[in-house]
């Protein structure tokens, strides 16, 4: 609990800072008077650290992220030939995040298990269950018998013939399935050409036998005291249905999926964490507040907007600023058709016409009231 004196500062300072002050005061056994002096000092430097009115936080954030990112370009694409799970790193990943791509290049999930289910055995079992297996993975051979117009499948494990037939029957209609000498023989109903038969073959290969669709491979890992499952491929909805999975911590790296399943706030946090992680992996130290601003801007509207012409930059209020960025003609024509007004409240449009920009020292006007 907070003591009386620091409590009165709650409106001015964040709780975490007040708690830290209190801790120090307790450790050093400071008197009430000294404690007040300390908290006043803390307050001073806290206020000093705040942005002043008229500070262009957006440009500063952009510069703070993009300057180190230029160094990144040179250091990426150095993973050629390396074994193991390849996740998109570095600049390509950063671009992916800020562009809010529908689907990341390498969708990845981190699945946490509930405390009481946390064991190597359990983790391994779940891992095996969720990994997607297609017909292609469980057969030895697939061949087309052109004279009879049928497809023959020879399974790896003859005991699993039943599951294969079940999966195929579920996905495909208009076929008859028979078993002959440990082979599955599929005959399409009616007459089909060789081309169609080939298409059917493709569809059979891609049919899912078990697991959750989209999850290509799984690795289990020990982190601290816990077993964690990492997957390539992402399907949050289905994974959360599993009883053992801790739905409070399990995440994916797909921003849109995160927003759909957990809501926009979760997506915001994901953007911040992923961007910061990507930068830090490359040894670049960017202050979290810059990345937070980007995350905020991308998610304020309630849906995820990319940084770019279809997102944040395209949503600028000024016609001229939009026209100066990209797709000049589109914006000018649209503005003229709709009789739009540019109020010259932004920075770019004022730079264009050669006026003082409304930020920094140009932010303020003097309003004087004259006596009658």
């Amino acid at each position, binding site marked *: 609990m907070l003591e009386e004196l620091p409590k009165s500062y709650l409106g001015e300072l964040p709780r975490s800072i007040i708690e830290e002050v209190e801790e120090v005061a307790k450790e050093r056994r400071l008197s009430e008077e000294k404690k007040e002096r300390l908290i006043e000092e803390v307050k001073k430097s806290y206020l000093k650290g705040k942005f002043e009115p008229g500070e262009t936080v957006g*440009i500063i954030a952009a510069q703070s992220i993009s300057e180190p990112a230029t160094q990144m370009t040179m250091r990426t694409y150095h993973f050629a030939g390396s074994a193991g799970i390849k996740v998109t790193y570095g600049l390509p990943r950063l671009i992916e995040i800020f562009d809010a791509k529908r689907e990341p290049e390498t969708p990845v999930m981190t699945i946490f298990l509930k405390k009481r289910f946390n064991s190597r055995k359990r983790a391994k079992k779940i891992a095996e269950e969720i990994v997607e297996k297609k017909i292609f993975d469980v057969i030895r051979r697939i061949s087309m018998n052109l004279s009879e117009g049928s497809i023959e499948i020879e399974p790896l494990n003859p005991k699993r013939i039943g599951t294969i037939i079940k999966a195929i029957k579920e996905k495909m209609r208009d076929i008859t399935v028979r078993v002959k000498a440990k082979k599955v023989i599929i005959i399409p109903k009616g007459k089909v050409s060789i081309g169609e038969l080939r298409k059917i073959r493709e569809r059979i290969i891609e049919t899912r036998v078990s697991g959750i669709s989209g999850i290509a491979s799984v690795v289990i890992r020990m982190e601290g005291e816990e077993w964690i499952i990492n997957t390539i491929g992402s399907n949050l909805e289905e994974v959360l249905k599993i009883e053992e999975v801790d739905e409070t911590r399990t995440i994916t790296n797909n921003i849109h999926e995160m927003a759909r399943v957990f809501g926009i706030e979760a997506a915001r946090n994901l953007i911040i964490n992923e961007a910061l992680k990507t930068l830090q992996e490359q040894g670049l130290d960017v202050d979290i507040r810059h990345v937070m601003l980007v995350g905020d801007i991308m998610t304020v509207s309630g849906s995820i907007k990319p940084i770019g012409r279809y997102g944040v930059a395209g949503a600028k209020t000024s016609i001229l600023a939009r026209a100066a960025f990209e797709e000049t003609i589109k914006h000018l024509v649209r503005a003229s058709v709709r009789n739009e007004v540019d109020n010259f409240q932004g920075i770019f449009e004022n730079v264009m016409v050669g006026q003082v920009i409304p930020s920094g020292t140009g932010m303020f006007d003097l309003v004087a009231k004259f006596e009658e």
Partner: protein
Amino acid sequence: MTEIFLDGRYIGSTNEPEKLVNDIREKRRNGLISNQINVAFHPNQDEIKILSDSGRARRPLIIVKEGKPKLTQEHIDKLRRGEIKWDDLIKNGIIEYLDAEEEENSYIALKVEDLISEHTHLELDPSIILGLSASFIPYPEFNRGDRVNYGAKMIGQSIGLFATNYQSRVDTKSNIMVYPQVPLVQTHAHKIINYERHPNGTNVVVAIACFEGYNMQDAIVINANSIQRGLFWTYMFRTYEAEQRRYMGGQEDIIGIPEPGVRGYAGEDTYKHLPEDGIVNPETRVNSDDVLIGRVSPLRFLGTMDQFITGIENIRETSVRLRHGDSGIVDRVFLTETVDGTKLVKVVVRDLKISEIGDKLASRHGQKGVIGLIVPQEDMPFTQDGIVPDIIFNPHGIPSRMTMGQLLEIMAGKVAALSGKQIYSPAFNPTSEKEIRNLLEAYGFRNDGKETMYDGRTGKKFEAQIFIGNCFYQKLDHLVSNKIHARSRGPVTLLTKQPTEGRSKEGGLRLGEMEKDCLIAHGAALALKERFDSDKTTIPVCSECGLVAINDRIKNRKYCPVCKESKITDVEISYAFKLMLDELKSMLIYPKMVLREE
């Protein structure tokens, strides 16, 4: 069946591709078929390609049989004695030329020592893997690879004697070094390409030391007296040309002194150094923007009838002037004709470029730098023999770049200077470090190339021994005098009223998009406005319709052409924005300016 193609045409097929290919090669080596034919068998594509057409790049290689090169000591001795020639080696199947296609079938050894029985060919010399520029670098195998690459690149930029007939050439721009030298430390390439006839640098005495911080960050301290003696002097030649063109309707340009009254006439003073024919005389001193060739041209873009009026009003001055910022002396004047039979004048201007602070120098090991300070000889350090270095090179340039070749060159250069004989150190086959150290000792010097030196200003001995020797340095074609540029006010472009771009047009230095963002980030709103003020204009705007109004200066009246009588306000705006408004209007978009009282 293997398909056979001759120069890309299908000519037949065979079941025994290997045998066929070997047969052709055997016959070529025996001189039964032309040695210009190359044949390749591609097992993967299952085809044989026989090539005999022109334009293939081919290179000579020594043929190897069972791990033994066909070229023997006997041949080399005979070659030396002049009993046989290169052609004999080819005729006898000792050396053959391969093209890119046949190279695919060969296994080429770099050195004799590397030969194993699978090899089919041997390189003439291991240094052949280097290109022309790189093979001028001595001791390249002692440098890090990228430094050799940089060095080779800079050899291409060096100023030397690129052609001995430069006096009769009219290159648009060329540089000639005044006192070029042949390097003390050479490679085979220097011999092969007749380097003595077109050298590209000078041997200088280099001390590796610091000098008052004026050679930090790759800068070079240079001896003023060495420059006065002609070190790194170069001439820059630039050719200007003017053609006496003929136009439709019988009109033509006239080369001569323009008459007063012609459009664009620049005043009598401008043309006073021109002789009667309007072309400057050789050995005339000319300065920036001086007229070299006086010329007038008929005006273009006239109405149909105006074309036939040939009065003085329809003639424009189009003289050829010296480039802005250049100066020099007229070297040569050429009078000739073009293919169309019109008169053509070429004027070559020469300018002596004496090394100054900011000129770029480089050794052959990718060690480049600009001159940071020119020091009088008496202030330079000297050795006990009284040797004063020409150049002081900063020791910090060595460890991170690891150009050991440069250090070896300096030591070898010292030996060469002492013995009076050039040293040959081509790639992979150099004069060894041990040999050089022994020679240095034999001449009474320390074998590590260091010497005791004294400060020229105080006469005091330096505590450290200083590494000093001779090295080949080049002056690169990046001279400050061709690049220096500054502007406060100056010309603007016609269309946008913004400053021109580029040194030749006396242009401004652009404050770009990202630089603009920095000013914004600092909140320096007024500094930003001032920087972008270069094209500001005051235009009258109608406060009713928001369009640009008219300022009639004769009647001293401002009015709106749309609303006639209405309130007009003067607005300060960038001219580029006014242009954009005009463009919008031309696209039938009505940009209405809503004015607010200040």
